[in-house]
């Protein structure tokens, strides 16, 4: 059979997001895959060198559209580390609640993308609706639905409104009531099982060799999670589990995402119970005149996709000298995806890609 070069994406039914893969195929078998990013490259890291420390927040959010909150957290942590700013206890707890809510929202969005791609449109609509309920909470808290800029150096922007924690609990309960429906229609569905078992397999050795983090690594049985390894906010003060699966295929990755969502909801309940009283932010200097001393910092947080790092360098000025985000999709989309797609079937490209949670804006930055 003849070898054909096939351009998969950025406009393709099986492709979610502005990402493209060049496939060399023979029949419907993939011989070679070349990731082709750059459709969303906006040069944020360069732009950030021209803006003051505080002006960078709107840019930081837009690096990952689906979960801007972990980006805010990474940037705030890096600035705090460089400038030596303390964060009040209550703000740390509120940050954790906020980040876990963002994780649930992001996973629901991921579930939308995945089930939509697989043809489970009903489940996709449910997931989108439930994500919207969480966005409503964010809207009440910050005024913005998608981009919030709630976390900033020194704490959080403002305290929770009155009765807000009750609202969180209520919303999460209403979503939790639908978990059996999700299970019956999607996760226990033989169609889902057939399409995902044994597809896109990554062993633990391969995942570690190729820089895998997040679900890709946890689906191979390794409970690697930055919240446990290098705890930030208050993750060392609450007890929670890291869900894992053993097989490393698409099925395992999606089930890890499902389990993580449920674990996050339980974690939010625990965090709300332990929420102390007190101040929510420490004052920072005038943002227009704020200069941070020479230095460099590398911080890591666990975003819903895996290890998210930020390397920040200051030369003593009022703007960052160099910003470099280490995003989880970078290794997953550019290294692991290329290797896993070799030998796979064309119909599984979107399946494998979305199960690895590859988000294009995160790669391009």
């Amino acid at each position, binding site marked *: 059979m003849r070898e054909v070069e096939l351009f998969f994406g950025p406009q393709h039914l099986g492709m979610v997001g502005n990402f493209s893969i060049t496939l060399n195929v023979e029949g419907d078998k993939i011989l070679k895959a070349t990731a082709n*990013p*750059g459709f969303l*490259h906006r*040069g944020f*890291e*360069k732009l950030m060198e*021209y803006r003051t420390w505080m002006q960078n927040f709107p840019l930081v959010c837009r690096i990952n559209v689906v979960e801007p909150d972990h980006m805010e957290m990474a940037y705030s942590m890096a600035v705090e*580390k460089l400038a030596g700013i303390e964060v009040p206890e209550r703000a740390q707890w509120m940050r954790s609640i906020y980040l876990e809510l963002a994780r649930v929202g992001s996973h629901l969005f991921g579930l939308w993308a995945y089930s939509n791609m697989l043809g489970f449109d009903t489940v996709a609509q449910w997931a989108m609706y439930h994500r919207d309920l969480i966005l409503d909470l964010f809207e009440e808290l910050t005024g913005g639905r998608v981009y919030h800029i709630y976390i900033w150096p020194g704490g959080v922007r403002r305290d929770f409104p009155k009765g807000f924690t009750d609202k969180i609990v209520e919303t999460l309960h209403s979503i939790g009531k639908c978990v059996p429906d999700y299970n019956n229609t999607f996760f226990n569905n033989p169609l889902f099982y057939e399409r995902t078992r044994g597809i896109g397999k990554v062993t633990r050795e391969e995942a*570690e*060799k*190729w*820089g895998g983090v997040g679900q890709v*690594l946890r689906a191979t049985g*390794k*409970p*690697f*999670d930055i919240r*446990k*390894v*290098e*705890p930030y906010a208050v993750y*060392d003060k609450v007890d929670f589990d890291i869900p894992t699966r053993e097989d490393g295929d698409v099925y395992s990755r999606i089930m890890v995402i499902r389990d993580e969502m449920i674990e996050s909801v339980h974690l939010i309940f625990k965090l709300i119970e332990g929420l102390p009283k007190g101040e929510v932010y420490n004052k920072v200097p005038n943002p227009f005149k704020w200069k941070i001393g020479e230095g460099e*910092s*590398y911080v*890591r947080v666990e975003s819903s996709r895996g*290890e998210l*790092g930020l*390397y920040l*360098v200051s030369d003593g000025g009022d703007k960052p*000298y*160099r910003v*470099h985000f*280490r995003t989880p999709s*970078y*290794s997953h989309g*550019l*290294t692991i995806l290329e290797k896993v797609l070799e030998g796979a079937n064309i119909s599984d490209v979107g399946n494998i890609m979305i199960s690895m949670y590859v988000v294009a804006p995160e790669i*391009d930055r």
Partner: protein
Amino acid sequence: MNKKNLIDELKLTFADIQVNEDENGMIKIHAKKEQVKTILRYLKGNGYDHLALVSCVDWINKKEFELIYILTSYLNDNKSYQEKGDVYLKIRVTRGGPEVETVIGVFENAEPYEREIHELFGINFRGHPRLIPLFLEREYDVPPFRKDFDTRKYVEDFFNSIPVIPEEKT
């Protein structure tokens, strides 16, 4: 191997490198560019098996690029991680005709990072299998992430003019 042992061993094994631990507990290694591959292989053998990031900073006043390899380890719990810590490996490359050896042989996931640095900073990685463009669409005279890249001039040249924002009528 824990932090303290590693620093001693590194000093013994490699002659002309500087190793020190900063106040945050990071191990910082300053080395020559020829030693990168050897040191990374040594660190990988000692349990620093996760290359988190390869980054580059353009220190234009010193006429140098600084390449940073951030290494951590795939450990599950905080206690063993605290003992091991992170390693920053730093090398300096002169700005005129910068060239470094690729480290793909040691860490396979360095491939896109090196491609990106080649594209945005113009550093050549010897032995890299495909130094083809990653993000950018067209060629630039000066690689765009260098500090001497004039964004304003580029916009003027490329789009002929910068659109004027009309003043508001009062």
